[in-house]
């Protein structure tokens, strides 16, 4: 049932990233993540395992969501089955499984919704494709609602604006509520809510890591760039994905942020209490859990007495930060209102570049011919800057300022039409590696095109999930695993640090 074209196809024969595969029904039915263990379920307020009357409970939850979320109700009612979305999902393009067509994915839930909440579904179910919720359907839900990365690409093309992510999110919330959650997301949410970050890094380990980084950077540059943790009285709280603390290539991005802050003498700090920008509450659709994680950031900002909050490079984190933080944990009237709340590190750096505060030696990046992968949550679920669409222009402007060779990928694979990396939405787990590989196919093909046409060697992204996912799948498509870089990694390479102006504050962390 292998539908993916051989990624190692002979050179010169370039595959079209948008090529529509033949339908291969059921070929991904067996792809599903590990189920969360009872202890992790219970920690989030969900039943430990599948409850006895799960059908009734699921329908009840569906009714509750229908009353709480307009998106859910309107989207379930309004689909015309026009087919506009059918060839837009990277998981469909990569697998050919028809249940990975966005509308078909929605229909897995819509069939049950129609059976219980619509007149036609109650009396003539066969006519409108309505179905009872049975084990087979639940099985399909668990498989295919964990083959959606909530990237919203389909929503760009839907004439009604139906966003499959909203349906996936609701389906996961329903499954959680009857005791069938996915291990990866739910375990991670538990760690953030108890320890403060996805990795479960305790404050001591975090502090040690940051001290090591200071030494490394000092050794490399001769400049004492600081990585402050829990420093009261700082102006800026940096909240960044915890992968930035140790994973490659993420950590080089963190060094980039620190160098930017250092260069302009900013008083900044990170927080061990809110040492995580990521908010997996989004992935499982739990408003309560999403809010709890967001409130940690608010508390950290209040406790440290900062004036601004800046977020590091992380896609869905930026969606939650930009679009939801004010809702979940606002109002932020205790912060300096002259700055965006919250602000993206790219907005911060871009503003400094615009004002001529940063200098770059672009030749430091001359070994790199670069392209940029717009991360889905930044592209379609958030924004930046002053104008609509600045989330595309600002990262590119930073890259152009720090690098001589920049080439965009095909227009229908970037910006609002960008592809998910294949690992977003809570799917970045080894139990889904086959899905992740196949889902990356459209992006890999687009990359292949610019590699052939412009000799592109590297791809930058502003998302921790993208970085981790690409590090893993790039080699599967014949690229170097280090071909994925962060935007602030490029900044870090090229920024000219003013050695004589080391005026970092003396506060010991």
């Amino acid at each position, binding site marked *: 049932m292998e539908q993916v074209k051989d990624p190692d196809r002979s050179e010169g024969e370039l595959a079209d990233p948008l090529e*529509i595969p033949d*339908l291969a029904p059921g070929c991904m039915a067996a792809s599903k993540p590990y189920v969360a263990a009872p202890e992790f379920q219970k920690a989030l307020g969900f039943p430990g395992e599948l409850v006895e009357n799960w059908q009734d409970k699921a329908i009840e939850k569906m009714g509750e969501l*229908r009353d*709480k*979320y*307009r*998106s859910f*109700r*309107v*989207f379930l*009612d*309004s*689909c*015309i*089955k*026009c*087919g*506009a*979305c*059918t*060839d837009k999902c990277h998981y469909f393009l990569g697998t050919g499984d*028809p249940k990975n*067509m966005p*509308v*078909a994915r929605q*229909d897995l839930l819509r069939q049950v919704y129609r059976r219980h909440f*619509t007149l*036609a579904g109650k009396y003539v179910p066969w*006519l*409108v*494709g309505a179905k009872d919720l049975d084990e087979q359907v639940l099985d399909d839900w668990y498989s295919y609602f964990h083959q959606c990365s909530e990237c*919203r690409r389909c*929503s*760009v*093309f*839907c*004439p*009604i*604006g139906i*966003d499959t992510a909203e349906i996936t999110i609701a389906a996961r919330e329903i499954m959680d509520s009857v005791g069938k959650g996915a291990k990866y997301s739910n375990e991670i949410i538990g760690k953030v809510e108890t320890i403060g970050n996805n990795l479960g890094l305790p404050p001591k380990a975090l502090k040690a890591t940051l001290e090591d980084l200071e030494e490394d950077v000092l050794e490399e540059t001769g400049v004492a760039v600081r990585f402050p943790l829990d420093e009261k009285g700082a102006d800026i709280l940096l909240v960044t994905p915890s992968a930035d603390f140790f994973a490659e290539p993420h950590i080089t991005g963190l060094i980039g942020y620190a160098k930017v802050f250092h260069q302009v003498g900013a008083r900044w700090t990170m927080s061990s209490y809110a040492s995580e920008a990521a908010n997996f509450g989004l992935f499982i659709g739990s*408003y309560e859990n999403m*809010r709890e994680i967001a*409130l940690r950031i608010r508390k950290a900002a209040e406790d440290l007495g900062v004036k601004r909050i800046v977020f590091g490079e992380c896609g869905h984190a930026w969606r939650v930060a*930009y*679009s*939801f*933080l*004010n*809702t979940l944990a606002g*109002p932020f009237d205790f912060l300096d209102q002259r700055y965006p*709340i919250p602000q993206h590190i790219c907005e911060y750096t871009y503003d400094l570049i615009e004002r001529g505060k940063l200098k770059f030696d672009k030749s430091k990046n001359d070994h790199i011919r670069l392209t940029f992968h717009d991360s889905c949550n930044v592209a*379609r*679920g*958030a*924004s930046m800057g002053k*104008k*609509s*669409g600045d*989330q595309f222009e600002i990262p590119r402007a930073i890259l152009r300022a720090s690098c001589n060779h920049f080439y965009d990928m095909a227009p229908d694979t970037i910006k*609002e039409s960008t592809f998910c990396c294949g690992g977003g939405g809570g799917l970045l787990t080894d139990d889904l590696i086959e899905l992740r590989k196949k889902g990356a196919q459209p992006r890999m093909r687009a990359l292949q095109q610019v590699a052939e046409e412009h000799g592109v060697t590297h791809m930058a992204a502003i998302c921790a999930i993208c970085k981790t996912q690409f590090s893993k799948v790039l080699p599967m498509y014949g690229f170097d695993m280090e071909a994925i870089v962060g935007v602030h990694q490029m900044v870090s390479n090229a920024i000219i640090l003013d050695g004589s102006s080391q005026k970092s504050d003396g506060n010991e962390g």
Partner: protein
Amino acid sequence: MLTFAYALLFYIAAAVLVGGLAFRIWEYATTPAPLKIPTTPAPRTRGGVVLRLGREVVLFESLFKANKWTWLFGWAFHAALLVVLLRHLRYFTRPVWELVVLIQPFGIYAGFAMVAGLLGLWGRRLLVPRVRYISAPSDHLMLALLVGIAASGLLMKFVAHTDIVALKSFFLGLIYLDWQPLPPDPVLLVHLGLVAALMIVFPYSKLLHAPGLFFSPTRNQVDNPRERRHLAHWARELEAGRS
């Protein structure tokens, strides 16, 4: 008897259409959208949102991005339907409005465009495997219903004329509660029966995409979450318990 049956049918159909749609719109309007989820890039102002929705309604902008064939057939059908509906106002108004008079020559041919668009959409539903896969019997039936309405209408215009003056008296009679006999032409009876059926299923079917678009949070929200705090009533209650 026939007149009575159709009069009753249209009273019921009109009541279901208006009442049902009003109920749906009330449901959509009163269900909160707790989070800001516009598909970005999105307008930063209310005016921008009006323009965005306007482009969706008038031009089917997103569908155009998605698939040119579906857009062509879908847009042609909807535009033609609008012209045909406007043209039909002449059977319900006296004197006939000026706009309706102006549109009359186009209205007749719009009927053909309507059928062409519908057949194009149906062709895709039957021939494109992806679209066939997602089609339920009701999706085909809906197209059949619309084709039936358009075809029977065209038949009356070009082949088997009905007594249009009597028909207008019938409908004006319905409106002013002064019933007049309905011409017993079979094609007319089919046409009117299908139209009544369409009116009745409207609030219970995917035809809800019409009001749905206006309530679609990905399209109707202003992209200003950092500037203005957005809070649903149930989220406010949740916050009341904030420690």
